[in-house]
């Protein structure tokens, strides 16, 4: 499935003294199989954009096309289109409300009118996807769990709707390194098993590790769209956007400036490790 943004503009409080343009003429396409990182300084319009992707906000002008159909068109089955796009908000655990983990995850599928057996199957699958043991956690209260586990329950609730595209707005905010790595590992597995992923992130190092594509927003406009390799070699642009580049990219540029023969587009620690070790071995053959 594809989600295509065409000349998307969003103006908050249009026609009043508080009018502000949050998004200006944004066009790009989220393609099947992308792991797309959406990055930009706070206030650049990321969250506004994300809320257009499943129809929570309507564009002031422009369109969001889901497999060619206008999400905000007059005769469109919006509910059906939205079901294929799962949105995980920031701090999604604040939205947990049920007595047990299983009931909370079942809330969405239940509203679809599925049979009890189908609902349970979906809950089991979703819990497995977020690495929560069904027998151990299904009947626990979500509010007795750790912050990271609660967040995984909230994500499972979205996965139980079996979306083709999963959108996550800063899924690791507020988590410690261990919780962060678990969530990112889960998102990586979902992507590998065929889910298209859109992830809003502030961490260029996380983006470097995971994304196949990076879309950069600045002041409500699209600043750049490319692979991490293309984006992270443009250090000046990324710094002007208030984002910076991964440490590996910074090291590469510092070493090149000192005359070391390294490609200018390295951006992961593994690549750097390989190149530096090779240079060392060439210089010290025995």
């Amino acid at each position, binding site marked *: 499935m594809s989600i295509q943004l065409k000349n998307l503009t969003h103006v908050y409080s249009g026609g009043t003294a508080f009018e502000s343009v949050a998004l200006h003429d944004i066009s790009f396409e989220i393609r099947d199989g992308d792991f797309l990182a959406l990055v930009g300084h706070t206030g650049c319009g990321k969250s506004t954009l994300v809320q257009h992707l499943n129809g929570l906000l309507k564009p002031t002008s422009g369109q969001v096309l889901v497999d060619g159909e206008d999400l905000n068109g007059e005769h469109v089955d919006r509910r059906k289109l939205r079901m294929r796009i799962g949105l995980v908000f920031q701090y999604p655990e604040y939205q947990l409300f049920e007595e047990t983990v299983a009931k909370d995850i079942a809330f969405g599928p239940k509203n679809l009118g599925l049979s009890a057996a189908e609902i349970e199957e979906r809950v089991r699958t979703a819990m497995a996807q977020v690495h929560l043991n069904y027998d151990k956690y299904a009947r626990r209260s979500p509010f007795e769990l*750790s912050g990271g586990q609660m967040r995984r329950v909230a994500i499972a609730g979205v996965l139980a709707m079996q979306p083709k595209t999963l959108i996550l707005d800063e899924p690791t905010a507020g988590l410690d*390194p261990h919780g962060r790595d678990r969530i990112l590992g889960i998102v990586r597995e979902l992507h590998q098993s065929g889910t298209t992923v859109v992830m809003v992130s502030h961490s260029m190092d996380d983006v470097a590790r995971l994304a196949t594509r990076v879309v950069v927003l600045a002041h409500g406009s699209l600043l750049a769209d490319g692979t991490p390799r293309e984006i992270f070699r443009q250090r000046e642009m990324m710094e002007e956007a208030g984002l910076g580049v991964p*440490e*590996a990219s910074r090291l590469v540029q*510092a070493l090149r400036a*000192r005359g070391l023969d390294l490609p200018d587009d390295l951006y992961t*620690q593994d690549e750097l*490790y390989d190149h*530096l*070790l090779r240079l060392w071995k060439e210089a010290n053959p025995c």
Partner: protein
Amino acid sequence: MAEENRIQAEAVSYTYEEAETPALSQVSLAVKPGEFVAVLGHNGSGKSTLAKLLNALYVPTEGRVLVCGMDTRDDDRLWDIRRAAGMIFQNPDNQIVATLVREDVAFGLENLGVPHDEMVERIDRALEAVHMTAYAATAPHMLSGGQKQRVAIAGILAMTPLCLIADEATAMLDPSGRREVLDTVHRLNREEGISVVWITHFMEEAATADRVVVVSDGQTVLSGTPREVFTEVEKMREIHLDVPHMADLAKRLRDAGMPLREGILSVDEMTEEVCRLLCPSN
């Protein structure tokens, strides 16, 4: 004679009611005047329990905590202790009580019965110290997360504390909010001599401290300068904490036979060291 420690925790243990095992066990920590100490640990490590023991929100099950010489078990000194060691918490929205920034900063002073003129002066100074003077008459909900945390800090500063305890004060902020809050606290530490206990799980924040104490499973597992602590790559990994990317890369290259020196933390240090071995002019 040297000035007494601002905070002194002596073999402190704490067990929550109905818990089988202690959340914190035999932890000692001394914070000198003007010192900036980071406490690093993952969720559930006991670091927030430690924070709450340091200004008498909790009282130790074993051992004792002295704040500027006052024992936190002494009920009569409770308000003096809290005034000497102010605390900011994680969620900016849970700490604001008033409808205007100025009134929020005034809250603690009003409760102390400080005369009006002095109160106005202390509020003005506190807002100035966190660079929020321009927002004195603003409604707190109009502020960013980082600005709200700075207002919370101003509320503590108005009480003229000797020590500031921050329990994951930046965990819910974006990178620029995090920087603005951490920079503010460093400036107060430097210019006003306020001691800081900075509790965090962000390794790059702990790296800016004078000293880092690493807590895991309720115990102190590492303690030293940031350089000493962050070059313990394997130990840090074991307890699920981050190490700086450059420390990690340096260790991998060293393990593979490249003779980089120990103690590399930053991109600049790595650049110098790789150049020493590989750059054409050397």
